[in-house]
Structure formats: structure tokens, C-alpha cells
């Protein structure tokens, strides 16, 4: 797979603060990559460094194989969509979109054609003669995307472009963004702190924390197989259990959780475990099964007590005390809520051991 962007030990400091700490990863060509992390994790700094608004203190940035570390921002051909859209308030929508073409020597007729084409794609042809102040937030956002796309950038940089839209519009627009990216076959890097958004649009997710890249993977990998406690905790709700390795086999491992519970978990081959080792087990609430009657599955079965219930619409969330451990379980569509004593069972393939040293 070709690399659209490659970061090699990219480091950016602001005074004594390390905003981006030796970040290295590749962004595959024509992929939609999401930089995800809490505010202040360095994701925006990294994006702005790719655009060239910050000079790196160490490391290199390559775009399409070319080292651009010292190339000024206006020569990098990256199209950026800013969080507040940054439309030129004194120019009409047409001129906003056409602006970048001024510096690319495209003839007037061709430029106009390209502007109209991209405007058509985003459904904003009827807005071309308006000023940005006369547009709604969603429309402004489309203009900002059109303006970045029309220059046919090597990489499209999206700096939390959805955060100023209301929840419903946001969900629709992110699906459109993803579709446009796929249809045009361009590479996009999208910054967000919204884990749901990241899971929904990303082909790859790069999770960052305190300036460091903590995990890179597909949405399912990030969600179900977090490598660190931070990733597990940051994305959605998760059960984290302290456990001790009791016995390892080729594919599975027996773990003792709490004083007398034994659970079976599958392990990926890269993880090496030894007997007696302390580890952290993770399992998503939707993978914790609850029932009033004993389920058919053998093993990984616990008796528990329902302590609290929250109705959340599609699912009902149970807080269960099972021996010495507390578990959160999401059960779909239970119109008659479970009460009192329940059976708790977990599929061993869904129990994941965090590779991070405990």
C-alpha cells in the first residue's frame, strides 16, 4: 500500500511542553485516517504540523514520498478544513472556493468549471453568489470542504470540522464526508475528540495521549482490542478487571479474577504470558450476557446480583456485583428488567487481555 503521509519521529515543543512526542506512523493512500484523543493530546498540533503551520523541532514529514519538513505551508498542497471554517468573509462563496486556484495557474474558464463541479458534488451550486455571513453553519461547512477539495490536495486535513454542527446534522455530514472521500479516492486525515465519530468514519484510527501515539488500528481493533488502559477507557464504556494468569495453553489462558473466580480468555499470539503474571482484562458491556436462567454455555459463568439499572433506549445498562467484581452489562431490548440474582456469562473470545504491562 502506498503512503500518502509518513511521519518519522515528529516532535513539536512549545517551550517546555512537548505537544507531539516522537510520533511515527504512515497514512495509507486513499484512506480515511482519524487522529483521536482528548483535548490537549497533540492531535491538532500534529495536523497543523502536516499543513506546515508549525515547524517540527525533530523528525520529518513526508507527503507522497517527498520530504516537506522545511517546505512552507503554501507550497505543501494540503487542503485544510478549519474548525470554524475560516471562510473569507469579504468574498462570495464562488471566490472563496476559487481562491486556491489563483495560485495554481489554472485558466479562468477551467477554474470556473472546477468550482462548479465541486460545488455540484457538495450540493451548494445555488449558494455561489452569496457571502459566507448569509449561510447556515452546515452550508458554511460545505463551502469550506469545497474550497479544500477544489485544489485537488495531496491530503485533505480536517480539523474537527463537525464540532460546530448540531448532533443530527453532524451524523449526516460525516457520512457524506466519508462518501466524498471514497468516491474521489483522496486521502483524508481527520482530527476529533469524539470517539463515536472516529469509529464511524475512520478506516484507521490513531489514538493519541499526552503527545504520544498510543495505538493505531482499525475501528474494531481499537474498540475491542485496546492495547492500553488509556485507549480502553477513552473509547466508550468498558469493564476492566484485574486478573492473575493461572494457566496458559496455546490459544487460551485461564485467569483468576477476584478471590475464587476463574475465567477463560483467548489471547493473540503476540502476547506472551507467564503463570502468576498480573494482567488487565477488558470486555465491552454489550459482550457481557445476563440472564435469569442458567445459559447453555459452559465456563465463564458467574452468579451476580443486579445493583442498579439505567434505561438507555436501545439497551438497558445493568450494574452487577458478581463475587468480588463489579461488571457493567448492556442488554438489548429487555422490556422486563432483570432484578436480583442473575447469571453472568462471557464469551472467552470477547475477553481481551491488555498487552500493556500491568
Amino acid at each position, binding site marked *: 500500500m502506498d503512503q500518502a503521509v509518513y511521519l518519522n519521529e515528529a516532535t513539536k515543543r512549545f517551550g517546555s511542553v512537548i505537544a507531539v512526542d516522537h510520533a511515527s506512523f504512515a497514512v495509507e493512500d486513499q484512506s480515511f485516517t482519524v487522529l483521536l484523543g482528548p483535548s490537549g493530546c497533540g492531535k491538532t498540533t500534529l495536523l497543523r504540523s502536516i499543513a506546515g503551520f508549525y515547524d517540527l523541532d525533530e523528525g520529518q514529514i513526508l507527503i507522497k514520498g517527498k520530504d516537506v519538513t522545511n517546505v512552507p505551508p503554501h507550497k505543501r498542497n494540503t487542503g485544510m478544513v478549519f474548525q*470554524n471554517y475560516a471562510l473569507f468573509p469579504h468574498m462570495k462563496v464562488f471566490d472563496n472556493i476559487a*481562491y486556491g486556484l*489563483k495560485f495554481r495557474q489554472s485558466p479562468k474558464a477551467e477554474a470556473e468549471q472546477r468550482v462548479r463541479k465541486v460545488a455540484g458534488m457538495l450540493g451548494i451550486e445555488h449558494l455561489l453568489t452569496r457571502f459566507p455571513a448569509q449561510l447556515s453553519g452546515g452550508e458554511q461547512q460545505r463551502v469550506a470542504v469545497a474550497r479544500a477539495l477544489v485544489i485537488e490536495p495531496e491530503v485533505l486535513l480536517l480539523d474537527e470540522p463537525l464540532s460546530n454542527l448540531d448532533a443530527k446534522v453532524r451524523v449526516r455530514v460525516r457520512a457524506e464526508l466519508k462518501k466524498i472521500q471514497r468516491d474521489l479516492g483522496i486521502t483524508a486525515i481527520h482530527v476529533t475528540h469524539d470517539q463515536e465519530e472516529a469509529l464511524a468514519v475512520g478506516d484507521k484510527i490513531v489514538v493519541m495521549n499526552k503527545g504520544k501515539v498510543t495505538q493505531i488500528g482499525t475501528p474494531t481493533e481499537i474498540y475491542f482490542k485496546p492495547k492500553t488502559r488509556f485507549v480502553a477507557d477513552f473509547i466508550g464504556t468498558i469493564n476492566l478487571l484485574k486478573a492473575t494468569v493461572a494457566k496458559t495453553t496455546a490459544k487460551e489462558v485461564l485467569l483468576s479474577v477476584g478471590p475464587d473466580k476463574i475465567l477463560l480468555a483467548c489471547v493473540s499470539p503476540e502476547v506472551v504470558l507467564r503463570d502468576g503474571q498480573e494482567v488487565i482484562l477488558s470486555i465491552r458491556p454489550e459482550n457481557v450476557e445476563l440472564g435469569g436462567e442458567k445459559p447453555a454455555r459452559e465456563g465463564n459463568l458467574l452468579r451476580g446480583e443486579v445493583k442498579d439499572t439505567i434505561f438507555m433506549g436501545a439497551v438497558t445498562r445493568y450494574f452487577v456485583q458478581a463475587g468480588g467484581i463489579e461488571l457493567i452489562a448492556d442488554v438489548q431490548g429487555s422490556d422486563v428488567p432483570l432484578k436480583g440474582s442473575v447469571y453472568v456469562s462471557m464469551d472467552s473470545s470477547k475477553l481481551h487481555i491488555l498487552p500493556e504491562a500491568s
Partner: protein
Amino acid sequence: MSVVIKTVRAYLKDPTTTGLYLILFLFMLVFFLWPLLAMVLASAEGPSGPSLSYYTDFLARKLLVNSFWNSLMMATISTASATAVGFLFAYATTRVDMPGKRFFRGVVILQLISLPFTVGLSFVMLFGRRGLITYGLLGRPFEIYGWHGLWVVQTLTFFPLAYLVMVGVLKSIDPALEYAARNLGAGSAHVFRDVVLPLSIPGVASAALLVAMNVLGDFGNPALIAGDFSVIATEAYMQIVGWGDFRMAAVLCNILFLPVFVLFFAQKYWVSRKLYVTVTGAPTQLEIKKSGKLVKWTLFGFCSAISLVIVLIYASIGLGAFAKTWGVDYSFTPQHLQDVTFQGIPAVRNALIFSLCSGFACAILGVLDAYIVFRKRMPGRQILDFISTLPAAVPGFLLGIGYILSFNTPPLVLTATAYIIILNNIVRDLPTGYQAGIAGIQQVDVSIEEASTNLGAGTFQTLRNIVVPLLKSAFGAGFIYAFIKCMTTVSAVIFLITPEWNLPSPIILGLAGHGYWGQAAALSAILLTIVVGTLVICRLVAGRRIQLFEV
């Protein structure tokens, strides 16, 4: 070493910014720093090589040493009174629901754009030995000349400056805080003492330092009204005009520069930092809480009294312009207007030319200056920021004398040309244009420029396509401010004018000095009409697009 390489690389990457940096640095070096340095050099040169003989001479002359202490004393008491009046005015117009606010604001704006010595001139006419009020109405001899007269005059002249600073601060204090305090049980007195006052302290300090700098550097009012109470500004003038002693004048300037510089530093790097913290909150739409009757009407009475005096000042100028012989015969005559046309009209024409040139230059340089200091995070921007603000603190007469000392001799001879006056005006008013530029730039989001860069525009193209069009109104404001200041400036140009390139303000001072009150008033009236007219026309043409004197 790597720092040097990084710096060089940053400059090479952006030739437009680098070019602008060099132009601005070079300009300020030649026309601002060099004259200041020339003054230090001139004062420290003895008959044979460097010596401090002029300074020991200064210390030996009681009159001169006294003038220094007098300047400090006057600055202290005038600052206290002008700041107090300014604060009450600002508090009353921003946080008290009293009638007549528009009128009070108008009075303040009039004072801000007026000739710097209007108050001095009219006070002599109203309260002098032959004053309309003291001699004409009350029939009592009254001695306005001296420190007490100067004190009142400086208070009335500079309280609007304090007002301008403090209004900004008071406006930024969220009324919600007052509501919160009241909600928690605080009465009006407590709200003021515990919330409003502490939050406005940095503003008060900033205003006070600004006023102090201006009082120290003021020349016109002391020249008219100080009498035997000599201050540095008038002494320096005497040294040059009376004795031709440039070196002693330079010594006086340098000695005055010391306290001014300290005040400037305190204002820029200490108080304004603290100020910034309180000004961040976005203003809310909450209405001002109704204040108590006693507070309301006391403040109203106070503002009315001050405004009445100011109205009286301008009325006396108007009256003086048409009264036959001030102090003796108040019958109507157009004679004075006719008399001043011979000398006055060419001078007013010169002033208009110079002000147009300087206004444009200040506006352009100011906006560019603000842009590269605030947007281009290049090394060395703090220095540029410093030398772009400092001229506002340097007393006019000081820079005027510096200009004579530096541009009288090669390599650059400019004496007796129009250029020297224009350049002097540009340097002195650059801070005005720079401030207007900063205000404008802070209203434009950085990401708009970044978007332009991201789409392929270099610095020059971004400037042309984005920054300049968006900063039109900042440019307009910078131009108007600089234009008005140039029209009325006196202290610096008084050393630079020639019979060929004369200006109205120094002429008025001269006329008043020789007792031609009618002609002085007539020329003042003409000049005031022009500056007020400029402001009114600007308001009518640009409306709210150009924000001037947001008080």
C-alpha cells in the same frame, strides 16, 4: 547555534515578512532611535571628548534642577486628579443609568481631538488678569499663572485620556458579576468596593501612567499658563530659543526621558499584562443595574459641572475669535479672522498636507507593523513591538530637539524641509496607527489567514487578498487618528518649522504669547472646525464601519 540557523531559516522562508521587518526596523532606527541617541551623544560631549560637564553644570543650576522637580510634582498631582475625574466620568457613563451620557461622551471626544493647549489658552482668557470671568464678571484680580492654574488645566486636558482607558476596562466587567454580588447579599457600596473597584484597578493604574507620561511631556499648557513655575519642557525650549544651548536642552531632555521611560515600561509590561486578564470575558447583554438616587445624581452633577467648564472653554475660544479686544471690548468684529488669514491660511494648508501624508503613512505602516508583529511569529517581533509603541511615550519636544541634532548635519540633512516635519509626525503617530492595526487584526481570526496560506497563497498574496481588504476599517481608523493628531500637534514641530513651512499650532502659541488673544482664538477656532469636521464627515460617510473613539 541551532537557534541562529532556525532564525535565519525562518526569515529566508518568508521574504515578504522579512522585507517588511527590514523596512520598519530601518525606518525606526533612522528616524526614531538615532535622534534619541544623538541627544545622548550631544549631552555627553565636552570641549575635548566625552564628558559629563553639561550634567554637572545642570546640577549646579538651581533653576534647572527645580524645573525637573516641578515637572515631577506637576505630573504627580495632575495624574492623581485627572485619573480621579476620568474614573468618575467613566464609571458614571458606563455603569450608572443617568441622563445625558451622549453629551458627556461628546465633551470627552471634543477634548481628545482638540488642540493640546486649548484649555491653557482659554483659561488665560477666562481667568487671567484680564479674564472674562475673573476681571470682567467678578471684577476681582486673580492670578491664574503658576502651579495651581497649570494643575487645573492639566487635569481638564488629560482626564479624557484616563477616561478612554478606563471606559474600556469598566465596559469589560461583566454586569453579571454585579448581579452575582447582589444576589449574595451585597449592597451597592459593597458591590462597588468588592467587585467593580478591584477589577478596575489595573485600568486605573494604566490610565494614571499614561496621563503621567503626557503631563511630563506637555509643552503648550505650561508655556501658556505656568508663569514662573518652570518645567523641563519650557526650560528646554528656553535653552534653545533663548540661549541657543542645544546641549543643555539635550541634557534636560535626557533627564526627563528617564522617568518617562520608567512609566512607559511599567505601563506596557506590568500593568497592561494584568489588564489583559480582566478584559478577556465576552461582554454580556445584561442591563446595568439601576443605581441609587444619591449616587446617580451626585455623579450627574459632577459630570455636568466638568462638562460645563469644558463648554465654557470652547465658548470662550469662539467668543474670543470675534470679540474686538479681549478683556476690554467684547463687541463683534471679523477683524481677527481676516488678520490671521495672511499667516494662517498657508499654515493650515501645510498642516493639511502634512497630516494627509503622515496619516496615510501611519495607517499603512501601522497595519503592516501590527500584522507582522502579531501574526508572523518571527524572532525579533518583541523589539519591533517595543519601538513601535515607544514613540507614544516620548515627549514631542524631546523628539523635536533630537531631530534638529540629528538631521542638521550630514549624512542626512533635512533641516528646514517639509520632510523633516512629516517624518517626525509619522514617527510620533506610528503608535496610533499601530494600535488601530492591532485592534483590527484581533478581530480577524488567525485561521482565515491560515486558510489562505493553506490554499497556496504566500505572505504577500495573503496580505493583498485577505489582510488588507479585511483591515480597511482599521486602516481608516488609523488614518483619522493620525490625521487629527497631526493637525493639532505643537511640541515637536515647534522646533522644526520655518517661515516657509509654518504650522497653525505653533503660530497660535506665538500669538497667545504676545497677547494677540483674538487672533489666537480665531486660528484655534479654524483649526478646531477642521478637526471636528473631519470626525463628523468620517462618521457620516463610514458610519459604524470605522470605529473611532468607542467611549
